[in-house]
């Protein structure tokens, strides 16, 4: 090959690498951090936070031993799924500062993809889930590129527009054969015969998701995300390609929202256009606000409060009559307002502080 062509090829390869792999380079370094992570994990287990997490995990695993009730396990499954969804929103909004009101677009698109693949193509649910999440990543790229020029409330509205577009697209009768219009896709094969097996599948996926999200947030990439959230101009002045990192954040967040959406569809064994409603985006936002923004693990607490505690607490009220049907929603709203007034940071941080005092007291410190 002539030298010149070779050089052109080399240069184009280099620029390709720089553009597409520039960021993943730092992500690639993650695998080098694994031994360190393992070491710090061992130390972490014996700290306050670590022992708390392990206790919570053991508690979740013990649930099926205590109760075999399908109802409770179904509620818990929806809690697990929504905690992944809320955490993905937390990465994008809490860590990178890109407030998205259109997170249901990732959720729904992945849900539809997974449902389509499982039912029409007959793929195994794990592969459908991963492909569904990948579609959400691609969609994150497509949304990200035009939306990155928007800031603050405009970004929120811009992302919301995408979820509205998808809602109307999937509602329309034109694609009835594939997407099923208003009825959506239903009658998916079950993930597992036993509810408990399904519970454990989703629990494992949720734990993996949270470990990955936590590692990302604690890594160098997470530091850059936080810098972009705090002051984008200053990050730019520090030599950070903010566009690239914001896009990366959109894609990672889209991936985990996609995982959650796929699981939601697979768990429900049906999906319809209402999955694109802005309501689902607000579920994620409310859960993160309850648990604590920019904490990742706060998403678990928020999802637990919203999906399990609040909905179960007020269920009897709804059963009392149609007048009371909207009481749970009303009371959740009031609780949210009180939270925003008195615990801006969410309840995770203050609760942890009190627990820590108790922990120190128990250990006699």
């Amino acid at each position, binding site marked *: 090959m002539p030298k010149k062509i070779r050089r052109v090829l080399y240069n184009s390869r280099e620029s390709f690498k720089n553009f597409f792999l*520039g960021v993943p380079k730092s992500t690639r370094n993650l695998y080098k951090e694994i031994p360190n992570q393992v070491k710090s994990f061992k130390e972490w287990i014996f700290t306050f936070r670590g022992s708390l997490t392990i206790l919570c995990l053991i508690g979740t695993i013990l649930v099926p031993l205590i109760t075999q009730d399908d109802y409770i396990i179904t509620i818990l499954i929806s809690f697990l799924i929504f905690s992944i969804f809320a955490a993905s929103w937390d990465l994008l909004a809490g860590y990178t500062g890109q407030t998205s009101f259109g997170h249901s677009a990732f959720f729904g698109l992945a849900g539809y993809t997974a449902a389509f693949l499982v039912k029409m193509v007959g793929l195994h649910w794990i592969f459908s889930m991963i492909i569904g999440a990948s579609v959400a990543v691609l969609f994150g790229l497509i949304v990200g590129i035009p939306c990155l020029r928007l800031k603050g409330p405009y970004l929120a509205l811009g992302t919301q527009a995408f979820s509205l577009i998808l809602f109307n697209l999937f509602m329309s009768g034109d694609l009835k054969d594939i997407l099923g219009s208003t009825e959506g896709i239903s009658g998916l094969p079950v993930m597992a015969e036993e509810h408990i097996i399904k519970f454990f599948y989703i629990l494992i996926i949720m734990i993996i998701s949270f470990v990955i999200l936590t590692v990302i947030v604690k890594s*160098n990439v997470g*530091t*850059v995300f*936080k*810098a972009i959230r705090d002051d984008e101009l200053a990050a730019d*002045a520090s*030599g950070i*390609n903010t566009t690239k990192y914001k896009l990366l954040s959109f894609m990672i967040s889209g991936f985990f929202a996609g995982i959650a959406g796929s699981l939601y569809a697979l768990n429900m064994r049906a999906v319809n256009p209402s999955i694109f409603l802005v309501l689902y985006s607000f579920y994620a936002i409310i859960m993160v606000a309850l648990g604590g923004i920019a904490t990742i693990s706060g998403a678990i607490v928020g999802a637990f409060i919203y999906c399990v505690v609040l909905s179960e607490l007020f269920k009897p009220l709804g059963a009392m009559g149609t007048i009371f049907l909207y009481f749970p929603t009303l009371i959740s709203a009031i609780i949210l307002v009180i939270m925003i007034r008195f615990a801006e940071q969410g309840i995770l941080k203050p609760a942890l502080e009190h627990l820590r005092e108790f922990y120190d007291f128990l250990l006699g410190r």
Partner: protein
Amino acid sequence: MGVILEVKNLTKKFGGLTAVNDFSFEIQRGEFVGLIGPNGAGKTTVFNLISGFEKPNAGSIRFDGMDITGLKPFQIVNLGLVRTFQLVRSFHYMSVLDNVSVACLSPRGKKAAEKVGIDQYASRILSEVGLIDKARFPPVILPHGDLRRLEIGKAAGTNPQILLLDEPFSGLSYEEQEHIHALIRRLSNEGVTIFITGHVLRELMNLVPRVIAMHQGKFITDGPPQEVANHKIVLEAYLGRGGGIA
């Protein structure tokens, strides 16, 4: 040696106002230059134009023999031209150490920090600017003088060839100013070219060997501080026309 920064016929208009008008100057490698002018002379606009935060209407900026007009700020930073802000811009909810680490995580900073590791490199910079004791604190609780030092530390994290300091002394006590003076001198001695603005002449007089003066967006004069301070238009700009003192 040689020219590191060459600005030619730079012009910037905001609507009807010409903030920078046909402004040209050169800076040699390793030089220590001040840019003075009364409030509103266009100093910060010149910095914004050089560092890519604003696009000039006309003129060109060459850095290290390369045309950088129209490049994005982060690209310019990664070539080695770094600026600080007049109003301190720190990452409020991150620790002081992480503030500097972000700069070390830029492609240029990463290359410099490769050997020692990002954290090590960032804490070395922090000890140089004298903030190592406060590495774990968030910047929101730091006093103004420390924030100024952090601002310089953040710029140093990207391993700059030339540092543009926008009013690093404004709002500081005499003691704090002395700290920053020493810090900037040390950077200059390490071979970093420094370009610094100020609207109070006295601050810059005993610091820089060469001063560029501007007024109402125009280049006025260029030379040693004493000479510039006695220049007719400079005196007029600061003290008013036909003043009895001059």
